Every structure is written in C-alpha cells, then in structure tokens.
C-alpha cells in the first residue's frame, strides 16, 4: 500500500521514517522524497498488513499520513491510446494490451507527474 507522508520540520528534525522503522520493525520502501528545510513529503510503500501499524507510528511522530489509491487517473474521452505516456513513466504503470488499448497499473504510480506532462491529449491527471 502506498502512503503519502507529510511532516513539518519546524520543531526540529525528527527522523520520522527511521523512527517508524525502528519502532515497528516494518521495512519501508521509500519511492519518492522531497524534503527541504521547512517540510518533507515522502511517498512510501509498505506491505498492506502493516499499513495500520506504520500509520499509527508516523502520526505519533507528528506526521500526516494519507493512503494513496490509483493515484494517476486517465480521462478515457481524451485518451487516444497513443502510448506516449508509456516510456516516460519510471514505474511501468502504462502498457498497451493486445488490442492496442492503453491499460494502467495505477497502484504502481509514485506521483512523479512525468506522464501528465508527456500526454499530448491532456488525458492524465494526478489525484492528490
């Protein structure tokens, strides 16, 4: 399950991720991170069965946690099944099936936004 963790760094530099790993013993896969001096936004992937535990621990450390489902969304009226999005996605989210229709593994998406820029038909958007 993918979780988007955001935290403020104003009150000192609490190592949220490290603390959670230590506290819960769950191995966390960091898929994307953007951290500056004020705030952090980290996208993590954890096994479904531990999601609750991880959430609780992170919230305890002062972070906000949001569960992400099907992050990238395709507007089927706009999409023409060209496939321009396929090769720019770092997560192999898109593929063409045997009928040359575009299919998505939306659960793999890490919200990087590359496909949104690449789609010539403005068919892709990201739910935040």
């Amino acid at each position, binding site marked *: 399950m993918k979780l988007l963790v955001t935290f403020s760094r104003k009150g000192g530099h609490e190592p949220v991720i490290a603390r959670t790993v230590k506290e819960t013993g769950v191995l966390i896969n960091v898929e994307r991170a953007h951290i500056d001096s004020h705030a952090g936004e980290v996208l993590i992937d954890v096994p479904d069965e531990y999601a609750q535990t991880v959430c609780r621990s992170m919230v305890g450390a002062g972070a906000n946690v949001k569960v992400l489902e099907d992050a990238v969304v395709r507007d089927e009226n706009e999409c023409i*099944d*060209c*496939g321009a999005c396929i*090769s*720019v996605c770092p997560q192999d989210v898109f593929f063409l099936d045997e009928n040359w229709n575009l299919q998505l593994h939306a659960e793999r998406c890490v919200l990087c936004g590359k496909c949104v*820029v690449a789609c010539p038909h403005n068919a892709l958007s990201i739910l935040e």
Partner: protein
Amino acid sequence: MHKSIDLINERIRDGNARVVSAEEMPDIVQELGEERALEEVDVVTTGTFGAMCSSGAFFNFGHADPPIRMERIWLNDVEAYAGIAAVDAYLGAASDSDTQGIEYGGAHVLEDLVAGNPVELRALSRGTDCYPRKTITTELYLEDMNHAIMCNPRNAFQRYAAATNTSERTLHTYMGTLLPHGGNISFSGAGTLSPLANDPHLRVIGSGVPIFLCGARGMVVGDGTQSSPGSQFGNLMTTGDLQEMSYDFLRAATFTGYGATLYVGVGIPLPVIDIGVVRSTAVRDEDISTPVVDYGVPRRDRPTVRTVTYQDLKSGVIEIDGEEVRTSSLSSFRKAREVAGELARWIETGQMLLSMPTRTLDATRTVHPIRETAQAPRVKEIMEKNVVSIAEDEEIRTAAKNLLRGETNHLPVLNGEGKLVGIVTTYDISKAVVRPDSGPRVRDIMTRKVIKTSPDEPVDIAARKLEQHNISALPVVDESDRLLGMLTAIDLGKLFGGRWRR
C-alpha cells in the same frame, strides 16, 4: 494479370468486392501466393492516426452588413491567415492562441468546431469604400460557415524518424518528451498500415484519389510539401470537407514545450490492380525501417543512433549500446486500425468508389535544406578572446583579485596542463568567505560541472544554453578542453541588439 479499376468499382457497386486491411494483407499473400491474392483481393485499406502539425482549414464566413474586408482574423483568439479575399481565412493547426499560448491552438479551434462548439470570430479592417466596416465580433458554429474546407499541406508521412536524447536534460520536442541519457525512444507512424508505406512507388496513390480524412470523404491533392519519396519520406497534401468530419478522427493536442498540433486520421484505399500492388501491400512492420535520431544534438543533421524497424519500435523495447530502452508511440495504432476498418466498411457498402490518380506523383523526388545566403553566426565571431583565468591550486584570494582585475563575474579555472576544469564566480567566492570551513584553494570552491561551448557552435545554440541553465557566461574551449575565450550575455547583446537580454 491486370485487374482494371472499372472491374474493381463494378464489384464494389455490386457489393462483391473483397476488401482487406493492410494489416491482414501480408498473411493473405503469404497464404494464397501473389497470383491468387491478386485474383481474390480487390481493395486494401490503409490508415494512420497521428500528430500532423501541417494541417488546417480554409473558411468562408459570409458577408456582414455593413460589409467588412477582414484583414486580421481571430477564431477563439487564435489568429488565422486573412490575406485571401474579404471574408476568407486559413487557420493553421499549429498557430497559438494570443491569450492561452500553446495550450490552445488552431488545432483546438478545429476540434471545437467539429465537436459542435461555437467559436468566436473577431476581425479588423481599415475600411474601404466598398467595405466600410472596421470591426466585427460574432459567434459561429461550423454549420454557419459557407465553406470550411480542410486542406493539409503535409500529411501521412510514409515513415518518421524515431527520436532519442543522449543529452543530460529532458527535452520537450515535436516527438514528445525525450528523457535524458537516452532514457526512452519516441516514434510515430502506423508501420504496416501506413498508406504510403503500402505504395512507396506511388503507383496507385496520386492526385484525385479518394481518401478517408478525419471521418469525411476526402481526396489527395498531390505531393505534400517537403515530400521526399525518393528517400522513403513521402507525404501527401490532402483535402476534405470539415463539416463532414468527426471528433473521433480529429483531435487537438499540445506537445509540452513545443506547441499545438492536430491528430488527423487518414486512410487511403488501394486498388489491387496488379502484382506490383499485391507486393507493395504485403509490407509488414519488420520490412519498414527507420533511423533512431539523437535529438540531444540541436543541429539539422542529427546523428543516427541505430536503424530499427517498426516491429522493433512496436515491441516496446529496443536495445541501444547493450541497454534496453523503452519505446512509446505518439500516433495511435488502435485508431489507425479504426480508420482502415471504417474505410473498408465504406467500400464494402458501396459508399466510396476508387479511382486511379488523375496525375501521378514523382516517386524519385527528394528535398534539400534551405539555401542560406549568410551562415548563422558562430561563437568565435563574437566571443571575448582576452580572458582572465586562474589555476586550480591558486588561493581563493588570488581568484578574487583576478575577478576584480578582469572586471568579470566568471573566472575559468585551468589545471596544470592548461585545460578547463572548473569555473569560479563572484558568488562562489562570497560563499567561501561566509563559510570558511571550505578549503583555501580555488579547486575547493569551483564548480566542476562547467557548461561550455566551442568556437564553431552557432550562437543561437550557445544562447539557448545560457537561458536553459540560467547562467550568464560560457567558456569557449577546443576539442581538448583548452580555453579559447568566453561568451557572455553582453557579447550576445552586441549581436542581437536589444532583443537578447538576460
């Protein structure tokens, strides 16, 4: 054996014509042999659906009262060409909106019209004795126009060069997003279904031939502009009635960082008149090869990284220098199939008859680059040759002195062999002063990743480097990184006058 076009049309009229798509034809020929394929198949339909920037439409709006001679015309804030009589205009798909830029272009106006949406027409005039009115603003639907005739100067290229990018940054091009370091390959074209790839010698495609154009019954006008069938890059000028077109086969698009474009569906029915047509329509993806070109080199003659076939491109991955690189298409093969399928239905139901070209096109024709009467300026012509530099093991203090002496903000750093190894700016020195824990030498504070140029690089390309990296000077080096000069925003200002400012 030869089969006449009249016989084929007779079969179409009788509802007996055997129509197959260009995707099915290779297997049919393989199974039946060429002779029997010629006997059995009457028409092969082709199709493609992709970005064709060189598209647009002529409009006649009708006369207003009092009448106006429209000299400048905008449709939804996209300017159309008005240099054709009083109430006519040509709207090109690639022109941008005055208010929304490339997000809304001529292509989007065409799409809006075809989708049944109203469009605002705005026009200006000086006023004449016969046309006194000076302005008009009105709202028009497609059916309000007397004529709306799509006329596309350059459609349906036989094949397209595929694109990759070995440079260090993401490029936004008319071939889509190209990731840095050869991270992906982008391609276009329908391969086995491509109209011209099925008739590369232009035996049955030519002027006057009926086609499918965005859902309407259209026609080939003749050679497309820049058509180069002699180098397997042929294309066609096409026309059709915009009022009969369908949103399913005409779509506006925007390539980020590049511009607006129109996705056009084109299909051409090929009459199977002889063995020559049987052979040319038996073409498969693996028979059509195309170069993969490096867009990381911003010049006309871009290096070819590898030659591949459409089968390779459609497989999704291509090996380049031992690495697997993913491919993506800009054109839609699903839609290309739909075009060929719809066209086949028209012919099977007798809604379209075929004809041979009224004028054949020259299949050996090629095109050449523009004649340039003056070479674009090169870096060496405007660079500053008297450059103050510094050695990497000098002290930071010395660098500061040199910067003051040279009255410059950039100090190229050289190693013992006189090669450029870094650059130091006044900003780096100020940083070093407030952060004294950095080392005492120039090499401790210099920027090592230097963006540079060469004496023979065109100035426009060097200027783009300055813009892209948001810097104001470029060291000029020879092949062995020896410093020859500096190119600064000030030098560019001299060349371009007030137009180039940082």
